[in-house]
């Protein structure tokens, strides 16, 4: 009798053999990119080089105008002559000529000349500048951007000195005009510096002014460390990307493709165990992913060594064998994780095409955390060690810059192995999920539509709603203001969407929206619970801030956005408390909860509905607090079997958050001492009441 290892080996060999015979896929997926990507880079670089040369070799024209025309003309000429004389070879001076056009301003606009130098007297300048400043402020106010006083000053020096001003007019939508402006500006500044130094010297100043309080930079990082930091940031995304594209060649076919061809059923009726099938397939995905990644890396290396790609100057990499081993050990579980995620996707998809469409979100989901090392100051010895993929990204930067802790590395390794094993287990599960393996057949739910189909479609619907919400708030949020946006989100998306779903799937409104009488005590629980929930929510938000620090400006600008001063109190109550209480509850605790009620255990159900609710509040830093409130509200509906208490809770929650602030009674996030424990106690009491008088939501999973 053959052992398990032989079965595994047979499956693996078959998988690889089939791939190797698929010449078309190999050619397009592996071989072509090896030449194509370098070719793209080379062509891009050649084009860039040509553009740089043409930028350097072009002749630029300027015209001189203004009351101080003569002074300005002399200064610019002197400055350019001096620059041409002192320019070094690494950055040759641009060829700039004066032009005698009749209408300099219009010539500048039409691109006939690149720069207009206007010589101005001090008082003239002051008038012009004040006017521009006023215009800028007005524009800032009308466009609603607020007055950003940090804007760059229009000239480069202090105000109280009476000197002429050279104003350089250029067009920022032309690269050449911009280059000419910078060249002339730098030349003028150099000239001024030189003359200033001469003045000092003439008056007997004992040294070069530049030697006063001389600065000396002492960079502690070696070139290797700097290169290491750069590679450390890029390595994880690069490898994840290569693994994903490489592994996909096999993964798509491995389960989804087999389902489509009908060979999966053949395989499942053999004596091979489900986990053997999954492991063999996983092994082939990993093997191919790793091989493709290695080929690509080697390819890159070859091009670097051939001099086709140039590395930045001062680029030095020193990878000791020890670091290499550590890196390999780190990336091994990552490779496993990436491949098991792909295989899971393949297991969930019924056809090859479906896999393709689902691939992109998974791609993003894995790639985004791979950029974690970009975050400044992030360390592996923090919560990030628990996030798969992100921990490897951070760890590889630390390893490459030589600052790491073995314990943290070990933890990262372990987390990824566990995540990978979990994904593999889920994949084994998909091979036993009857709905997924018997792909070819229509089932009754699909044929009839209606309530039977709804649980399977509800998440897609909410996905589309989310996309719509994101898009509209991104694009039109600015134009319609808070009231318009609230009305659209709540009235059209949530309420309208809920109605549409109920119509489309012929759902009974009463049971779908849980329009039932709650136990009387629930009302009391809500009155206690809503403010307590809000208070504890602030605590949760503060905890979240520890993990997910958010720049203060973001919070501030958001506060302004949510609480525009011009909104009268009754409108705040209506638009931000009552309306959300009704519409959001109908959408989330009504339709969504109803659709998902059988899919998850009640506790998980509350968490899932809460999390989705959180995601609908788009911005990252509101996610956790709103998701928290969402979980509480879901729990209220599950315990009372009615949506009404949740509506009241929601409205009260928003009102407690907004109204006192609007009346100036309470400022922002600062909680008075002792309120938090009170909130926790209140919440406990509230849920104790709900639990004691519970009238559970019908039809939950056991």
């Amino acid at each position, binding site marked *: 009798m053959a052992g398990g290892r032989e079965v595994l080996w047979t499956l693996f060999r078959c998988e690889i053999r089939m791939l190797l015979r698929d010449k078309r896929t190999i050619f397009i997926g592996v071989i072509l990119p090896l030449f194509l990507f370098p070719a793209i880079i080379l062509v891009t670089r050649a084009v860039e080089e040509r553009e740089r040369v043409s930028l350097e070799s072009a002749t630029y024209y300027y015209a001189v105008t203004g009351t101080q025309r003569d002074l300005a003309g002399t200064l610019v000429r002197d400055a350019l002559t001096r620059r041409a004389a002192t320019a070094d070879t690494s950055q040759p001076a641009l060829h700039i000529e004066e032009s005698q056009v009749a209408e300099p301003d219009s010539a500048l606009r039409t691109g006939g000349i690149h720069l207009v130098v206007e010589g101005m007297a001090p008082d003239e300048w002051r008038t012009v500048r004040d006017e521009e400043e006023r215009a800028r402020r007005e524009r800032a106010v009308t466009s609603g951007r607020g007055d950003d006083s940090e804007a760059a000053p229009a000239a480069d020096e202090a105000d109280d000195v009476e000197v002429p001003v050279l104003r350089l007019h250029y067009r920022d*939508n*032309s690269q050449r005009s911009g280059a000419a402006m910078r060249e002339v*500006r730098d030349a003028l500044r150099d000239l*001024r510096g030189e003359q200033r130094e001469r003045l000092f010297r003439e008056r007997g100043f004992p040294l070069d002014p530049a*030697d006063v*309080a001389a600065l000396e930079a002492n960079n502690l990082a070696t070139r290797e460390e700097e290169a290491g930091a750069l590679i450390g940031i890029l390595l994880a995304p690069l490898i994840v990307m290569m693994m994903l594209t490489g592994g996909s060649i096999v993964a798509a076919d491995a389960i989804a493709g087999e389902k489509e061809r009908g060979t999966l059923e053949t395989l499942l009726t053999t004596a091979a165990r489900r986990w053997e099938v999954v492991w063999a397939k996983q092994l082939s995905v990993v093997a191919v992913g790793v091989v493709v990644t290695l080929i690509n890396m080697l390819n890159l290396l070859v091009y670097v060594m051939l001099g086709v790609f140039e590395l930045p100057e001062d680029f030095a990499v020193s990878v000791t064998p020890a670091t290499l081993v550590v890196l390999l050990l780190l990336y091994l579980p990552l490779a496993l994780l990436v491949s098991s995620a792909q295989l899971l996707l393949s297991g969930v998809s019924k056809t090859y095409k479906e896999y393709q469409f689902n691939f992109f979100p998974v791609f993003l989901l894995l790639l985004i955390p791979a950029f974690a090392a970009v975050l400044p*100051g992030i360390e592996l010895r923090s919560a990030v060690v628990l996030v798969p993929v992100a921990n490897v990204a951070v760890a590889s930067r630390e390893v490459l810059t030589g600052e790491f802790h073995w314990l943290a590395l070990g933890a990262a390794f372990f987390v990824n192995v566990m995540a990978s094993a979990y994904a593999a287990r889920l994949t084994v599960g998909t091979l036993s999920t009857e709905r997924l393996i018997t792909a070819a057949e229509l089932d009754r739910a699909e044929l009839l539509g209606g309530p039977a189909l709804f649980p399977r479609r509800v998440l897609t619907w909410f996905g*589309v709603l989310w996309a719509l919400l994101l898009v509209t708030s991104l694009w039109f949020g600015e134009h319609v203001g808070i009231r318009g946006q609230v009305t659209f989100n709540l009235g059209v998306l949530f309420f309208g969407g809920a109605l549409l779903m109920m119509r489309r799937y012929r759902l009974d409104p009463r049971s779908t929206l849980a329009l039932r009488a709650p136990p009387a005590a629930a009302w009391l629980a809500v009155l206690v619970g809503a403010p307590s929930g809000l208070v504890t929510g602030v605590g949760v938000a503060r905890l979240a801030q520890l993990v997910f620090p958010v720049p203060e400006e973001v919070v501030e600008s958001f506060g302004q956005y949510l609480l525009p001063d011009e909104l009268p109190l009754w409108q705040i109550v209506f638009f931000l408390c009552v309306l959300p209480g009704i519409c959001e509850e109908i959408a989330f605790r009504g339709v969504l909860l109803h659709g998902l009620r059988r899919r998850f255990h009640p506790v998980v159900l509350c968490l899932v509905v809460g999390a989705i609710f959180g995601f609908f509040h788009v911005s990252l830093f509101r996610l956790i607090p709103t998701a928290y409130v969402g979980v509480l509200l879901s729990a209220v509906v599950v315990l009372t079997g009615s949506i009404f208490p949740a509506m009241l809770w929601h409205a009260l929650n928003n009102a407690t958050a907004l109204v006192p602030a609007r009346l100036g009674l309470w400022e922002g996030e600062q909680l008075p001492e002792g309120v938090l424990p009170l909130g926790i106690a209140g919440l406990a009491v509230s849920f104790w009441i709900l639990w004691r008088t519970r009238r559970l939501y019908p039809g939950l999973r056991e």
Partner: protein
Amino acid sequence: MTRPRLVPRDIAILYVRELRAALRERTMVMNSILLPIVLYPFILWVTITGISFVQGLTQGFVSRVVVTGLPPEHAELRDTLDALESVELRDEPADAVEAVEAVRARELDAVLEFLPADVAGSALSGNFRVRVSFDRSEARSRAARERVEAAIERYRDRWLEWEAGGLGLTPEELEQFRVASRNVASEREMGAMLLGTIIPLFLVVMVALGCFVPAVDATAGERERRTWETTLTLAASRASVVTAKYLHVATLGALAGILNAVAVTVALGPIFRPLMAGGSEAFEFRIPVSAVPIMVLGSALLALFFAAAMMILAAFARTFKEGQSMVTPVYWLAIIPIVLGESPDNRLTAGIALVPVANVAMMIRDAIVGRFAWPLIGLTLLVGLGLVAVCLWSARWVLQFEDLLLGSYDGSFWKFLRDRSPVVGRRSRQALGRPAA
């Protein structure tokens, strides 16, 4: 045959049927409508939000700095540093060597060591040298260096001003003149520049992407579903069937391109807002009405080209998957405009007008920034139409082989060319034509 080969009514009926079927399928709607509207703006938004998030984080760090050896007469400098909100002066470790070690261990961000001035510098009494130790591989440390150096430079300027007063130099003599710059391009011109850079690239990619799935689905996909033969047994002529399919694919491609252009234009303002906040530049994103016809024309041309090229290749495939890998190389053509340079000064020239795909992108960009070089636009259209004609001619040639049409041909694409092409494969055809012994 008495029936004409192309019957407009048949084509119309088949075309509507294809489109209706496509719009009923989730994947197709996703691909041609939802993705263009949502996905690319979304990716742009994620990227830019991510960048501003990281920037915010870097700026938000308070730099931990240790100062050693500061001469007592310059105590004011310490107060200046202390007054900075972004800098926190620490007393420990007081020893310079230890402090530098702390920077290495990332417990500090920078160390300022005040040292006696060197030979040239010591001519001025009270002068000193500052060594700023930092770690360039750390973003925090780089930011710390910039902050302290800016503070020291300000201090030096004030000191020099004071010294100049002592030497009898007036501020005017010292200053001589000032340089100011002013951008004369309007907000709309700036916006047009940005739109002109982004929209054509997205348009080309989206048209290609929009054609991709329908092209594969209408050929290889139909074969896989085994509806191909049903379609071929319709009363309509084969040419009508193929034309209807072709127009259907091109429609979806053009639709994806235009929808995406609209979506990106509308989304660009809000997307870029976080990056522009605080900057003095302002942008107004609006596509001039005069550019719209050119954009529509350009999308149509691109769609006709991509649809034809992709369908020819996909005709060789028997399954959706095969079709996908066959078509991928055509899809890569969409990156030509990206490769060919991004400088806002580039414009449509006779040379570029001859490069397929890139010429359309450049033509659209010119239209957006308000440049219309009609002879070159004409040349671009001519090149595009010529390309489409070549594709259609090859399609006609390919479809005359019944084994390919029915999907029983199972050689490779190259083999097909070798054996049957009138251009490449003449010799082998002669060989085939020889009677077997």
